[in-house]
C-alpha cells in the first residue's frame, strides 16, 4: 500500500473544505496519512523526507477555473526534488458550481504535471457543489464516492470519479442563493449589500 501524504492546496488551509474532504478520505484510508498545507511554505522540511511517500494526494478547490496559485507554487518546488520511484499522484478537487465538468481543466493541469515529470497519475475525484454539499443531506454521496476513490487507489486503478448534489439548475440557484445569504448574515451583511454592483474605486 505504501505511505500517503495529503497536500492541502487550499489558500484557506485549516478552514478549508479541502481539509474536510481530506478528513473524509482519511476515514476510509486504512493507515494514518500525513498532511501538508501548501500555504504553510514549509516545503524545505517536507522535502527532506518526501521520498518515503508512495502516494501524494492533492486536495484543492477550483480557483478561477484552474489550480490555486499557492498550489502551482508548490508543484514547481516539487518538481525539483526526487520522489519515490513508484510514487502515484491522486487528486480531489472541489468547485462550488453545479457541473462536475467545470473541474476538468484543473485535472488536466495536474495530469500534465505528472506527464512532464514522469509521474504516474492515479485516481481523481471531482466534486461539484462542493462549497455546500457537506452541510446537506447529500453529504453521503461524497462519502460513498470517497470510499470508491480509496478502493481505486488501493487497487492501483487510474479513474476519474465525480459527484454533485442531484439538483436541477433552478433548484441549485435557489439553494446556493440561500446558502450565501446565510453566510452574509454571519457578518451582518444584507443580501442587498452582497448584490451590490459596485467594485471599489467607482
Amino acid at each position, binding site marked *: 500500500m505504501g505511505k500517503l501524504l495529503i497536500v492541502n492546496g487550499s489558500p484557506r488551509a485549516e478552514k*478549508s473544505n479541502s481539509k474536510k474532504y481530506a478528513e473524509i478520505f482519511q476515514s476510509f484510508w486504512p493507515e494514518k496519512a500525513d498532511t501538508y498545507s501548501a500555504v504553510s511554505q514549509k516545503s524545505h522540511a517536507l522535502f527532506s523526507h518526501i521520498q518515503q511517500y508512495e502516494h501524494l494526494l492533492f486536495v484543492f478547490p477550483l480557483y478561477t477555473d484552474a489550480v490555486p496559485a499557492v498550489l*502551482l507554487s508548490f508543484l514547481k518546488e516539487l518538481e525539483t526534488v526526487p520522489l519515490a520511484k513508484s510514487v502515484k499522484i491522486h487528486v480531489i478537487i472541489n468547485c462550488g458550481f453545479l457541473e462536475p465538468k467545470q473541474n476538468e*481543466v484543473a485535472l488536466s493541469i495536474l495530469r500534465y504535471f505528472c506527464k512532464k515529470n514522469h509521474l504516474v497519475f492515479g485516481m481523481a475525484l471531482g466534486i461539484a457543489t462542493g462549497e455546500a454539499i457537506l452541510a446537506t443531506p447529500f453529504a453521503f454521496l461524497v462519502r460513498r464516492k470517497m470510499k470508491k476513490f480509496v478502493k481505486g487507489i488501493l487497487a492501483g486503478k487510474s479513474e476519474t470519479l465525480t459527484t454533485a448534489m442531484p439538483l436541477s439548475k433552478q433548484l441549485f*440557484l435557489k439553494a446556493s442563493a440561500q446558502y450565501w445569504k446565510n*453566510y*452574509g448574515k454571519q457578518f451582518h451583511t444584507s443580501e442587498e449589500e*452582497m*448584490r451590490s454592483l459596485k467594485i471599489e474605486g*467607482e
Partner: protein
Amino acid sequence: MNLLLSDHSFPKDLPQKEENHYIDLTQLQIKNCLGCFGCWVKTPGKCVLRDDAVKVYPLIARSKNLIYVSRLYCGCYDEPMKRMMERAIPMQQAFIRLHHGETHHVQRNVVEKKAVIIAYGEIPKQEREIFKKLVERNSHNMLFSDWSISFVSEEHLEQTIRAEVDAWENC
C-alpha cells in the same frame, strides 16, 4: 478603456493615451488570495487585503479591450497572472446565475470585453490545448465576448504586444 496586464516587461514607448493602461505585474506587490470570501460577504466588491491588487481589478472590470501577457506553467497561467486573477474575484458576487447554460457567478459592474491572451515561452502542443480549454472556461467567468490566444516565443513577445496594442486603434 484598454488594459494591458503583463507578467513580463513590455515596450516603454507604447501609445500614451488616456484610455490606455499598461500594468507590469512584476513591479507590483500582490499576495495570494486568502479564500476568505470577504469580498463577497463582508465588504462586497472590495478585497480585504490592501496591497497592489486593489489598484488592478477595478481596471480589469472597466476595460473593454484586455490583453493578458503570461508565461504558462503546465497549461495554466503562471503564478503572477494566476495570483492576480484570483485576487480579482471582488468583481463577482457570491451569487450564482445561469450563463451559457452553466452555473457561474453573477458579475458586478464588469464591462463585456474582447480579450487577447499572449502566452509566451516554449509551449508544447498538449500544454497549448489545456490552456485553450482554460481560456474558454475563463471566457464564461470573466465576461469575454470575444477572445483569442497567441502563443509566442519570448523573443517575439515585444513585437506581438506592440501589434496587439496597435490593434486597439481599430476597435
